């Protein structure tokens, strides 16, 4: 287990040294979200209605940005092969890397989302649901994305291909995540959506590292 934390600490340290990557994804999120009112118009009722969808789609895209570099640097300098050879199960190490990816890209989005929600005139209750749904959903995005990142490791045109593979698989997360906020706003309650999102997270947390490991072994063969 200590190896997992060591991996997380290492990846976070590396991310701190290259702050620009983390910040780029974050500002991408902010800019994309801010563009929508400019394109659609500033009418508060309309903005309130589309806010959950826009914030969630922007979060999907922002998560995608960092995915291509999830394994690529470690692949380039041979760290990945060392991980495969290490006595610790590869699945655990990969889970650590996915956790680090979430802390650097997912968690900032969760923290920033309420601020952007203000732009869309969301009330505090909806803001809370938005944060909870992102808190449950963004780890799932990192987990599913890791499978795509492992499959496309070292391929030409990897970035575009990655989004082609991963975005369709993001559909359930998007539906339940954005749906939770919408359901709260419309007064039907977000409980069902959030519990389904949590169930998907458990499922993803169990299977995704395993599939990612298998994909990485194939890529390294």
């Amino acid at each position, binding site marked *: 287990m200590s190896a997992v934390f060591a991996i997380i600490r290492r990846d976070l340290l590396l991310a701190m040294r290259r702050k620009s990557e983390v910040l780029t994804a974050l500002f991408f999120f902010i800019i994309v979200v801010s563009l929508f009112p400019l394109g659609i118009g500033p009418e508060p009722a309309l903005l309130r209605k589309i806010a959950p969808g826009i914030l969630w789609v922007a979060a999907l895209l922002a998560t995608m940005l960092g995915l291509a570099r999830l394994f690529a640097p470690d692949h380039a300098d041979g760290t990945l092969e060392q991980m495969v050879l290490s006595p610790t199960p590869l699945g655990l190490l990969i889970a650590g890397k996915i956790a680090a990816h979430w802390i650097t890209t997912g968690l900032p989005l969760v923290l920033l989302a309420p601020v952007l929600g203000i732009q869309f005139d969301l009330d505090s209750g909806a803001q809370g649901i938005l944060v909870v749904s992102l808190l449950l959903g963004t780890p799932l995005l990192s987990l599913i994305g890791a*499978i795509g990142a492992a499959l496309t490791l070292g391929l030409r045109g990897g970035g575009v291909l990655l989004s082609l593979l991963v975005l369709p698989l993001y559909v359930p997360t998007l539906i339940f995540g954005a749906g939770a906020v919408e359901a709260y706003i419309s007064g039907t309650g977000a409980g069902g959506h959030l519990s389904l999102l949590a169930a998907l997270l458990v499922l993803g947390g169990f299977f995704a590292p395993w599939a990612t490991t298998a994909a990485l072994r194939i890529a390294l063969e």
Partner: protein
Amino acid sequence: MSNKIVNWFKYASPQSFYPVAGKMIPWFWVLAAIFGVTGLWISFFVAPTDATQGEGYRIIFIHVPAAWMSMFIYVVMATWAGLGLALNTRLSGMMAQALAPTGAIMAFLSLWTGAFWGKPMWGAWWVWDARLTSALILFFLYIGFIALQAAIDDARRADKAGAILALVGVVNVPIIYFSVKWWNTLHQGASVSINKAPAMATTMLWGMLIMALAFWMYSIAVALTRVRAIILEREAHTEWVKELSEVKQ
């Protein structure tokens, strides 16, 4: 018992599968033609005009088979992929690769015919209905599979990476369908339900089933033809390919 297992594995090698597939292909074309002609005859000349949808309903004779096949082929593809990963047979990956374009075409046809059915019936080419949306995402999954395999030069890696993607996809398809359905019921105002279709006349049902058989036989025939081409491409440098009569000519 062990003999049988050995026999099956014998056909799992591309070398012995190639001639077997070659012998089977004409039969599947014949079956596809017979079922196709019968199905078309029923769909245009036997099945009566629908009371509510007029002649426009005849589109379902190709729409439903295409939709069925697009889902069925994905499952078959994932099964081959899983077999390939579990047993490490070369043929499995080639079969999955051969099925993907046909599956994508079926998914496209189900979307296309769905749009042509929806326009006169619903007044819109596209409606965000649960089935249509899932079909669209299934089409994306096919495209992703094909694109991933095309991007990998090494055939063995392409097979295995594609296999993992197909398996991840097949686990996700029910989740996607369920989530889209859930999403759809929450936004009921925006779409129309297809479920209100009245009980179908038996001739219509027969027409649909026979057309589905025709699509099925077509898919097998085309996929087998394609897998034979893939075998030749991949095994180009082996002795047995060089000894084939069609190469020796």
